[in-house]
């Protein structure tokens, strides 16, 4: 049942405790939001969970099908393989994740090719299918993303990430930096895809509305610690911790 688990993570940057004893777990098909203000440690936590950074103490466990095993026991090669296919990471700025001088099709195909896909026609067909899935006109398969809008770039990143059929996706503020109307569309897309594909996801956001929309469970972080966690609507509608109450009350009513 448990797909990913963190136990007692600690990470220090100079004098700052970015992670101060963080533990959490994630089930298959479950969506977990990590909310908190900037500096709370949420992005650090995401990077440690995704194997992109290491903790000073504590361990992250992942079940590859044979039970939970520590990530630190995987060699770098195995970890990269995992990150390349069975996991996905959607970054806030799609320009960091995409190759802007490679065509849309090439960007989507890259993870496939890195995982051994060697049939040009098949790669192309799959890429076109995914462009449609993220509501980009498949006729733009051979266009360069440098001419895409911010929203399109993010959708392209989503396609390029989900193309390998990952079972676990990490998202770091997937709609941060986008116009509000564009955000709604992307969130909707993510919501639909995540449900349809049965993905498990860990999503970092400072936007409570995003957490409410996408997540089954939520953890609230402050200064490197989890102060509250539980069912999303319960934590947001009946916040117990002082900081959570502050966070929830700070949202402007629509």
């Amino acid at each position, binding site marked *: 049942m448990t797909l990913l688990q963190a136990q007692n993570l600690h990470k220090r940057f100079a004098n700052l405790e970015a992670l101060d004893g963080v533990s959490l777990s994630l089930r298959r098909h479950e969506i977990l939001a990590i909310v908190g203000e900037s500096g709370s440690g949420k992005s650090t936590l995401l990077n440690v969970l995704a194997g992109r950074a290491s903790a000073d103490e504590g361990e992250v466990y992942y079940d590859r099908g044979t039970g939970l095993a520590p990530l630190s026991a995987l060699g770098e090669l195995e970890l990269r393989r995992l990150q390349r296919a069975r996991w996905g990471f959607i970054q806030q700025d799609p320009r960091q994740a995409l190759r802007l001088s490679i065509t849309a099709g090439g960007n989507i195909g890259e993870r496939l090719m890195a995982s051994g896909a060697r049939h040009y026609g098949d790669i192309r067909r799959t890429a076109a299918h995914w462009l449609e899935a993220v509501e980009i006109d498949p006729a733009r398969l051979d266009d360069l993303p440098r001419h895409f809008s911010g929203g399109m770039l993010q959708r392209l990143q989503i396609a390029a990430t989900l193309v390998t059929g990952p079972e676990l996706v990490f998202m770091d503020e997937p709609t941060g930096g986008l116009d509000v109307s564009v955000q709604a*569309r992307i969130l909707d897309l993510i919501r639909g895809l995540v449900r349809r594909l049965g993905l498990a996801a860990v999503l970092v956001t400072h936007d409570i509305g995003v957490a409410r929309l996408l997540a*089954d*469970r939520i953890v609230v972080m402050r200064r490197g610690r989890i102060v509250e966690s*539980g*069912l999303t609507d*319960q934590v947001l*509608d009946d916040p*117990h911790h*002082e900081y959570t*109450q502050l966070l929830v009350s700070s949202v402007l009513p629509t």
Partner: protein
Amino acid sequence: MIMLEASGLEKTFILHLQNGTRLKVLRDAGIILRAGECIALTGPSGAGKSTLLRALYGNYLVDTGKILVRQEGQMVDIATAQPADVLAIRRETLGYVSQFLRAIPRVSAVDVVAAPLLERGVASDEAHAKAAELLGRLGVAPRLHVLPPVTFSGGEQQRVNLARAFVCDWPVLLLDEPTASLDPANRDIVITLMNEAKARGAAMIGIFHDSFVRDAVADTVLRLEPAKEDI
């Protein structure tokens, strides 16, 4: 058959942003609900009716007490269940209708209504057909089906909300002022829907401000009194 049994519920809100003011809303609250039965919660404002309902749904966390719901033959305690289990119960067994729709942009009315069926694994065509039928019964014009309810009036939105509540069978259904924003004609349709659900064995708990509605659907009335505040 008992579908829901809550007992010993206590809840105190601690308002940290108001200097830690404590608000005790539930004191030793409880309720037993059977299949085919409708209980109306009454009582003055502040007595905890909405709080109780939300607690039964797992939306509010009680401080102590049990909330047992019959899920697949077992009684599961929502007060202490894992989030994933509460979500499973909400998908299969426990429905909740609020006073207003929480509208998500871009999702069409028919998609909103079909959602509970889709989550139960019903095929898309069938789910959307049933959704359209319910929307029709509640008088939502076909041309509105493909539009997102964000743009609808309050009453129209509530009718979408209600269509979603009745598109599938809920063994247990919680209703918080479901007809508050409806005109008499639509109110009557909702009464019919509720009684049809009851006849199919649904167990319902509702807050009905309108005594007409209450009298038309409720078998029992449970009156709540405000819990005295703790110091």
